């Protein structure tokens, strides 16, 4: 009797674990698969470093997109065009007009913000459907971007500008050798922080008498994360160290994770997506929430425009085409609900990395663009089918 009980509770635990970490497990499997298929070339320090940098803009966009999707499955189609517009303005201001790079960055972020305010106003306060508003934006901003660029390709070579976004951090004296020690030190500090944070959290909970997770699962989880950080930083130290771009991207992800998980402001996005009428009657200005979601998206799209132009080095009229789709895909693969109200930054990061690993793995194997599209589309569909089916099975 007791034995069967243990057995069922164990199998239930296993099922819970599998559904909760399904995407993490999928990422690990896909990663292992490509590591194997590429004879380990995927794991080269250079590739691992580039994985984050190549997909940095997706992560940043996806953080903004998540807020939009949370409000009710609403998406922003205009990001790719905004990236072209902002990148174009940056390139023209710096290269053609020879203006100050810092001023340029500020102007570019303001342009992104302005685009967001424009779309957010129509969506939030006039209640034009987001799909249509941003579809309009997609055409309009692409057009303006091309006007700014005068249909040419414009490059940026300004050192200050590039340093702000793409430089690898090198501390003189420390990082002169073959190995970039600063990356390793950062790794050790971060790993220690993760473990100490868990210890402190558990101690706090014990003191206040709150319910604890089992010590094994807590420490196993933080141990794994710490090990992962250490390993990644070790790889970075083997190849040029930490890029400023990585710092930008991680900072954005951490900030948005904090906002969505810990703040009242972040929670309102979940509330609006869960039930807008009830949220409104709870004294929350739902118009404003929509407005902020799209304003924020504009600002982040502006930042992405800068990150992208810095990384690629030039802008032309088709820069950023269909970038928004990567962000939307990352969100849905990462478990955001297409009806709004649920989704996490952590999930989105995993979704974006999954797409990134597939891209990179297939590129290393020399498989062309066309197949990459097919596989990416398939993964998106499978992920969402899995999500919907498990939700249905678990009752609601």
């Amino acid at each position: 009797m007791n034995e069967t009980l243990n057995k069922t509770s164990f199998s239930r635990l296993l099922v819970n674990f599998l559904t909760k970490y399904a995407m993490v497990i999928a990422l690990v499997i896909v990663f292992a698969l490509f590591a194997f298929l590429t004879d380990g070339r995927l794991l080269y320090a250079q590739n691992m470093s580039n994985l984050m940098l190549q997909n940095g803009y997706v992560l940043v966009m996806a953080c903004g997109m998540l807020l939009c999707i949370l409000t009710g499955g609403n998406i922003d189609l205009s990001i790719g065009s905004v990236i072209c517009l902002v990148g174009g303005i940056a390139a023209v201001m710096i290269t053609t007009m020879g203006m100050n790079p810092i001023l340029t960055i500020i102007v570019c972020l303001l342009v992104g913000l302005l685009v967001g305010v424009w779309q957010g106003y129509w969506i939030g306060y006039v209640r034009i459907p987001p799909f249509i508003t941003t579809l309009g934006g997609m055409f309009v901003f692409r057009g303006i971007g091309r006007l700014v660029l005068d249909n040419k390709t414009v490059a940026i070579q300004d050192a200050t500008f590039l340093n702000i976004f793409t430089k690898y951090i090198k501390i003189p004296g420390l990082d002169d050798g073959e190995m970039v020690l600063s990356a390793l030190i950062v790794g050790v500090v971060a790993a220690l922080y993760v473990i100490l944070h868990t210890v402190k959290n558990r101690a706090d909970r014990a003191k206040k008498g709150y319910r604890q997770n089992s010590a094994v699962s807590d420490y196993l989880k933080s141990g794994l994360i710490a090990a992962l950080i250490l390993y990644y930083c070790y790889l970075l130290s083997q190849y040029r160290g930490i890029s400023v771009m990585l710092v930008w991207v991680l900072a954005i992800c951490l900030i948005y994770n904090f906002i969505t998980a810990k703040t009242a402001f972040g929670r309102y996005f979940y509330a609006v997506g869960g039930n807008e009428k009830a949220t409104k009657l709870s004294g929350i200005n739902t118009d404003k929430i929509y407005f902020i979601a799209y304003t924020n998206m504009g600002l982040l799209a502006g930042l992405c425009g800068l990150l992208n132009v810095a990384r690629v080095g030039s802008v032309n009229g088709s820069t950023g085409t269909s970038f928004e789709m990567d962000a939307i895909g990352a969100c849905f693969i990462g478990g955001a609900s297409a009806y709004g109200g649920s989704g996490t930054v952590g999930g989105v990061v995993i979704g974006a990395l999954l797409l990134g690993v597939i891209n990179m793995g297939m590129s290393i194997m020399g498989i062309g663009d066309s197949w990459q599209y097919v596989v990416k589309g398939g993964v998106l569909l499978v992920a969402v089918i899995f999500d919907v089916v498990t939700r249905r099975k678990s009752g609601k």
Partner: protein
Amino acid sequence: MSKYILEMKNITKEFPGVKALDNVNLQVEPGEIHALIGENGAGKSTLMNVLSGTYPAGTYTGEIYYEGKLCQFKTQKDSEAVGIVIIHQELALIPLLSIGENMFLGNEIRNKMGVIDWNKTYYEAERHMKQVGLNESAQTLVKDIGTGKQQLVEIAKAFSKKVKLLILDEPTSSLNDEDAKMLLDLLIAFKKEGLTSIIITHKLNEIIYCADKATIIRDGSTIETLVKGVDEFSEDRIIKGMVGRSMEDRYPKREHNVQKDISFEVKNWTVHHPLYPERIVDDNISFKVHKGEVVGFSGLQGAGRTELAMSLFGRSYGTNITGELYINGERVNLKNTEDAIRHKLAYVTEDRKTNGLILGETIRFNTTLARLDKVCSGGVIDRDKEVKVAEDMKTEMGTKTPSIEQHIGNLSGGNQQKALLGKWMFTEPEVLILDEPTRGIDVGAKYDIYCLINDMVSQGKSVVMISSELPELLGMCDRIYVMNEGRLLAEVDASEASQESIMGYIIRDTVRDTANT
């Protein structure tokens, strides 16, 4: 040949972790109205879903005999094929389609080519609509007729499926007394023509009025079947069966200590319809509420009570709102719901699923939503504090749930209502507006909610209670305002009023209206 049209024997249905039905037996004779009663979560709807094939044969144990034959329905279509039709509590009509289209949805009348024969569709639709006394064109859109008539459309739809056994799940929960009575009279008339019905309802007076037998279900088991004319067939007797104890007093006693101070006063409040601004929904309404007082609002559906309450609660309904609002003697202008909450006003909606709760979120999430700032420091949520608050509210409200991390959509209606009340108690209101606070919940949960109301007023706070159930208003309130068609008709002292006197105001007003036009 069995003497029963329907016999359900030893039905047991399990969900993961819960036994929803445990050896339930139900026998229905042809041509009777059989009431199925029990508290929320007792298993009534589950039993009917087993019968209709919504839970297919094989997912439960036990046997169903219909007209003497053992039946194993795989889908709802199977049960409809033999004449068992279920009408669910939430109407399954599509507002933007016509009555005729709705009636034959999924069952379209087609010609030989497979194309819909609209002439015949509308002809047949109107034929069945006449049967239920619905005088509308079959081409009228469903959104343009009232809830009462929509319920009739559902019944006409059942007739179009050649119904022999009609199951109605809470058919009157969204109807006012007048429409409800009409519906029950219709069922009695059909009974004479040989139709058998099973009716699930919480309104005991309706059972006394129309049912021949009543089967009581409690915690997934059948307790007893009462037969009119044989057993004692009274509300008190039924309640005793439902809750397993007799309930002497359905309304808890309290000291009436209304204070002199007026906490909430409205003067000349006029509200226009949000979509048709020329239509006046509430016309020049003035009323006041004292500290420590429960004030009731009585009226039929469409009297403008909900609209009045929502327009007062931070203008969450209506346009061109004029009038004055005083809280504790001070004139205030509440521009939005945030303002209203800040002025210690709370409005608990009549429609908890659409306007009250975020069903996909946890009890914890819902509890703190209206005053999230109270569990925040610097905009950051203190999770531990939030958990504590939600736990406290759960205990205080007596919400039955395994954990506050449970999705609120998984709770029964009564517990959802308690959680919703908890959410608004957390805002620490001085004036609490309750809109149909006991709609669709069972007797036990009702009693708990009445006790909460009494607690509130004993602390010197004020409660405004909108209800369509007159006994409830008479049992709970100090004063009652009577509304009809957007106007305030009368103000009566609850101790002097009776159901008849209040209905009298409304009916006389309606009659005068008709005479004037």
